[in-house]
């Protein structure tokens, strides 16, 4: 933040983060670009996916976890590509084993390929199982405030509604629903999915979101590292604007310079 203002950290399940921008690691050209963009974003929480190991690959081939080392970043394995609660729970358990017991996960259970819209029925079921199994669950969901409330009641440590479809770059389609979710939530609310450019990240924060999670907006920018820097500043700017409180809107104009003392008065 600025040199005269110190924001409270983002608190998720007892962990504290100075950065309110969380980033993914997909769609980059190579691991070098991944590492540079993540560094430029200032993110402390970094998501990744869990997939079958390519058998017969070069044993010396670089590994994503060498680029985003668990010593430097808080890793957030996701369940992307899971369409049932059962697959999502299995994936989380594999991730926990992969990371030597690290229990923070991003749960997402998808409905179909065309929309990647969350299947909230399966998401709720998976969340129940995972929370019971000791996971700290940050959950991707729709912008339905009732579902968000249920996920919090189950014990999810952060609720992450979409701004618009994953990878669409359509920004925040329903700011009024996000406001409803934010106003009722007792856990952090992060916009996850849909952000396309810096102003949309700032908008999410101005609405009162606690953070923003994004991947494509950075990775698919023409210059990902520069966009990562833009997003870092946008999230900070939006956060400060939210805390500062915007001026009231008014119907007519209101001069900034005083009317008294004009030479033509």
């Amino acid at each position, binding site marked *: 933040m600025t040199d005269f203002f110190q924001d409270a950290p983002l608190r998720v399940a007892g962990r504290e983060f100075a950065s309110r921008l969380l980033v993914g690691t997909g769609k980059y050209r190579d691991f070098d670009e991944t590492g540079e963009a993540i560094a430029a974003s200032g993110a402390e929480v970094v998501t990744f996916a869990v997939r079958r190991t390519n058998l017969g690959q070069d044993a010396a081939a670089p590994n994503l976890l060498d680029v985003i080392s668990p010593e430097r970043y808080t890793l957030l394995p996701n369940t992307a590509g899971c369409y049932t609660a059962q697959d999502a729970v299995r994936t989380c358990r594999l991730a*926990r084993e992969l990371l030597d017991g690290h229990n923070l996960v991003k749960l997402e259970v998808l409905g179909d390929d065309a929309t990647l819209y969350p299947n909230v029925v399966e998401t709720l079921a998976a969340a129940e199982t995972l929370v019971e199994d000791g996971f700290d669950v940050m959950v991707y969901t729709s912008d339905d405030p009732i579902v968000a409330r249920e996920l919090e009641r189950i014990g999810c440590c952060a609720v992450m509604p979409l701004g618009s479809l*994953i990878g669409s770059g359509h920004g925040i389609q329903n700011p009024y629903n996000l406001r409803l979710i934010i106003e009722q939530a007792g856990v952090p609310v992060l916009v996850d999915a849909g952000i396309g450019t810096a102003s949309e990240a700032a908008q999410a924060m101005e609405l009162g979101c606690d953070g923003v*999670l994004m991947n494509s907006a950075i990775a698919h920018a023409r210059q990902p590292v520069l966009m990562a820097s833009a997003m870092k500043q946008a999230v900070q700017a939006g956060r400060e604007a939210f805390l500062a409180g915007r001026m009231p809107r008014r119907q007519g104009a209101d001069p900034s310079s005083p009317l008294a003392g004009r030479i033509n008065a």
Partner: protein
Amino acid sequence: MQIQLNGEARTLEAEASVAQLVESLGLAGRRIAVEVNEEIVPRSAHGETRLSDGDRVEIVHAIGGG
């Protein structure tokens, strides 16, 4: 014996432990996680966990994602 390894049939010449399978694949010491028949096999148990005919083995790692 035959197992399903990451969704594909694979024949093992002799009885093997999870650790031996991982070693034979050149994955020893790599950041991976192993599941046999949908149950996690913790790293600490790779040596003592014997594979059986028909076992379904998954070996996963981290890749880029959002």
